[in-house]
C-alpha cells in the first residue's frame, strides 16, 4: 500500500470531517437542549450556503469574511422560528416534533427551489483552485481554511457553553428545566436563543460547504442524515465529541471510498452509526447513562 496515498486520503478525510463537525454542531446542540431532532437542519445549511453565495456573487463579500453576517442573519431566523412556532409544540410527543421539522424541511426546500432554481452553484473565490504542497501531500487552500474555521468555531462553542453565563444557562436547561427556571432562566427566550445559535451554526456551516462543494436546493436531507450520524457517534453532551464524531465519519468515508468503492461510503458510515448506537448509545465521549 502506498503510504503517500494513504496519508493524502487521511488528510482529505480530516478536512471533510471538520466541515461535518461544524454542520452537526447546531443539530446536536438543539437536540441536546430542546430535545428536538431538527429534520430541517440540512435545509438551513442549504439556506446558509445560498446566503453566502449571494453575499459573494451579489455584494462581492468574501465567503469567509461573510460568515459572521451569515451566522447573525440565520440566528435571527432561528430565533424567530422557535419563538413563534416551535415553542408551541416543544412539549409534544417526539413524533410531533419530528414531523413539524420535517414539514419545515419540505417548505424550505420548496421555497429555495422557487427562489434559487434547481441549478448547481459553487461559491468560487479567486483562491478556490489554490493548494499548498507539503512534501508529496496536496492541501487545497479552501478546504484547509474551511477546516480551520470549523475547528475554531467548535472550540469556541465549547468554551461558550462551559464558561459564559448564557452557556451555563443553556446547559442547565438541558439538564433540568424546572431547576433552571427556579434560578431565573426564562425558557421561551432561552429555547429561542439556543435554536437561533443552532441555526446560526448551520448558516456558517453552509457558507463553508458552499466554498468546497456544489450546492442546490436538495442537498438538505442528506446533510441532515449525516449530522444525525455525527451527533450520535460523538454524543450530545459536548461540542468536542461532535468534532470527534465528524472526524471519525470523514475519515471512514474517505477510506471506504478508497478501499471498498464509492457506492459503499454511506454503508460504511451508517454501519458505524448503528454499531455505535448499539454499543455506546451515548456517543464515543458520552458519559454512561
Amino acid at each position, binding site marked *: 500500500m502506498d503510504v503517500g496515498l494513504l496519508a493524502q486520503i487521511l488528510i482529505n478525510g480530516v478536512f471533510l470531517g471538520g466541515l461535518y463537525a461544524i454542520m452537526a454542531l447546531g443539530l446536536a446542540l438543539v437536540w441536546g437542549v430542546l430535545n428536538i*431532532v431538527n429534520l430541517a437542519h440540512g435545509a438551513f445549511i442549504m439556506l446558509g450556503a445560498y446566503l453566502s453565495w449571494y453575499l459573494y456573487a451579489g455584494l462581492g463579500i468574501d465567503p469567509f469574511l461573510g460568515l459572521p453576517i451569515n451566522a447573525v442573519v440565520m440566528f435571527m431566523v432561528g430565533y424567530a422560528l422557535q419563538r413563534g412556532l416551535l415553542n408551541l*409544540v*416543544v412539549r409534544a410527543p417526539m413524533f*410531533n416534533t419530528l414531523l413539524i421539522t420535517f414539514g419545515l424541511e*419540505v417548505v424550505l426546500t420548496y421555497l429555495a427551489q422557487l427562489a434559487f432554481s434547481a441549478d448547481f452553484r459553487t461559491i468560487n473565490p479567486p483562491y478556490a483552485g489554490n493548494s499548498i504542497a507539503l512534501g508529496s501531500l496536496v492541501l487545497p487552500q479552501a478546504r484547509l481554511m474551511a477546516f480551520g474555521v470549523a475547528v475554531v468555531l467548535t472550540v469556541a462553542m465549547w468554551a461558550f457553553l462551559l464558561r459564559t453565563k448564557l452557556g451555563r444557562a443553556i446547559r442547565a436547561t438541558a439538564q433540568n428545566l424546572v431547576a433552571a427556571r427556579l434560578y431565573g432562566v426564562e425558557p421561551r427566550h432561552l429555547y429561542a436563543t439556543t435554536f437561533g445559535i443552532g441555526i446560526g451554526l448551520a448558516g456558517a456551516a453552509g457558507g463553508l460547504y458552499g466554498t468546497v462543494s456544489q450546492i442546490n436546493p436538495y442537498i438538505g436531507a442528506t446533510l441532515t442524515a449525516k449530522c444525525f450520524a455525527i451527533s450520535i457517534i460523538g454524543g450530545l453532551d459536548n461540542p468536542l465529541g461532535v468534532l470527534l464524531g465528524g472526524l471519525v465519519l470523514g475519515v471512514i468515508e474517505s477510506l471506504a471510498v478508497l478501499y471498498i468503492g464509492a*457506492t459503499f461510503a454511506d454503508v460504511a458510515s451508517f454501519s458505524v452509526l448503528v454499531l455505535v*448506537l448499539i454499543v455506546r448509545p451515548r456517543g464515543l465521549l458520552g458519559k454512561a447513562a
Partner: protein
Amino acid sequence: MTAARIALASLAIAVLAAVPWFGSDVLVQFGINALLLAVLAQGWNIIGGYAGYASFGNSVFYGLGSYGVAITMVQWELPFAFGLAFGVLMAVIFAFLLGLPVLRLKGHYFAIATLALAQVMIAIVSNVPLAGQNIGLVLPPLNNDPLFYELALGLLTAVTLTIFWLTRSRFGFGLIAIRENEEGAAVMGVNTTLYKVLAFALSGVFSALAGGIHAYWITFLDPESAFDISLNVKMIIMAVFGGPGTILGPVIGALTLSAVSELLSSEVTSVAGLFFGIVVVAAVVLMPRGLADIVRRFRKSGWRYFAENIKAHRI
C-alpha cells in the same frame, strides 16, 4: 363490536370494492396508490402507534417486499404469489435479525438507527447483481388495474382487522403497555423483547406485501425508489394525521392526505409540495393527536379544541 358497526364496515368495504366497476381508470389508479399507502400507514401503526416505537425502517420492509416479487418473477421466473411469499420471508428475517439489537434502543435513538438501516439497504441492494444493482429490475407487465385494486383493498382490510384484533388481545395490550411504560410492562410479566420483535415483524409483513403488490403494478423498481425514506416519512405523517394507536385513524389519514395531494397536484402542480409541508406543520400544532381525536373531542370543546392543544404542548 355491535351488529350496526359490522354492517357499516361491510358496507364501506363493499362500496370501495365496487369502485373498479363504476369509477374511471384514473380513479382506480389513484385508489391503488391510496390503498397501498393506507396499508403502509396501518403497518406503521402497529409498531409506531401501538408499541410506541417510531420506526423509520418500515420502508425497508416495503423495499424487501418489492424486491422479493421482482427477483422471484424476473430472475427465477416463478409466479407472483411465490414472490409475495419470498418478500414476506425476507421481511420477517430482517425484523428478527435487526429488530433484536435495534429495538433495545429508545426514542430518537431507535428512530435514527432504523433510518440508518434504510440508508444502508439502498447501498447494499445497489451492489447485488441478483437485484439488478443500481439499474433495477423490469417486471413482466400485467395490465389489470381492477385486480391490483382489489388486492390492495383486501390487504388493507386484513391489516385493519389485525389491528382490530390487537385492541382486543393480550398481545395488543402488551404492546400498549410497552408504549406507556416499558419497565412497568416488563414488571407485569410482558416479554417485552419478544412482543416488540413480533410487532416489528407483523408491521413488516404487511409493508412487504404492499411493496410486492406495488412492484408488480408499477412493473419497474430500482433501489432509490424501493427503499425511499420519504415514503417512510409519508406513512408516519398519514398515521399521525389520522390518529396513531387507533383502528381507523391511519386509514382515514392516508385516504384524506392522498386525496388532498392528488387534487392539488392536478390543479396546481407547483404548490402541492409546499402545501403538503404547511399541512404537516399546521396539523402538528393544531391537532397533534390526529383526526380521530378531533372527532372525539371537538363535540365537547368546540373551537377551543385547537387552543387547548397548543396550551398543552407549548412552553
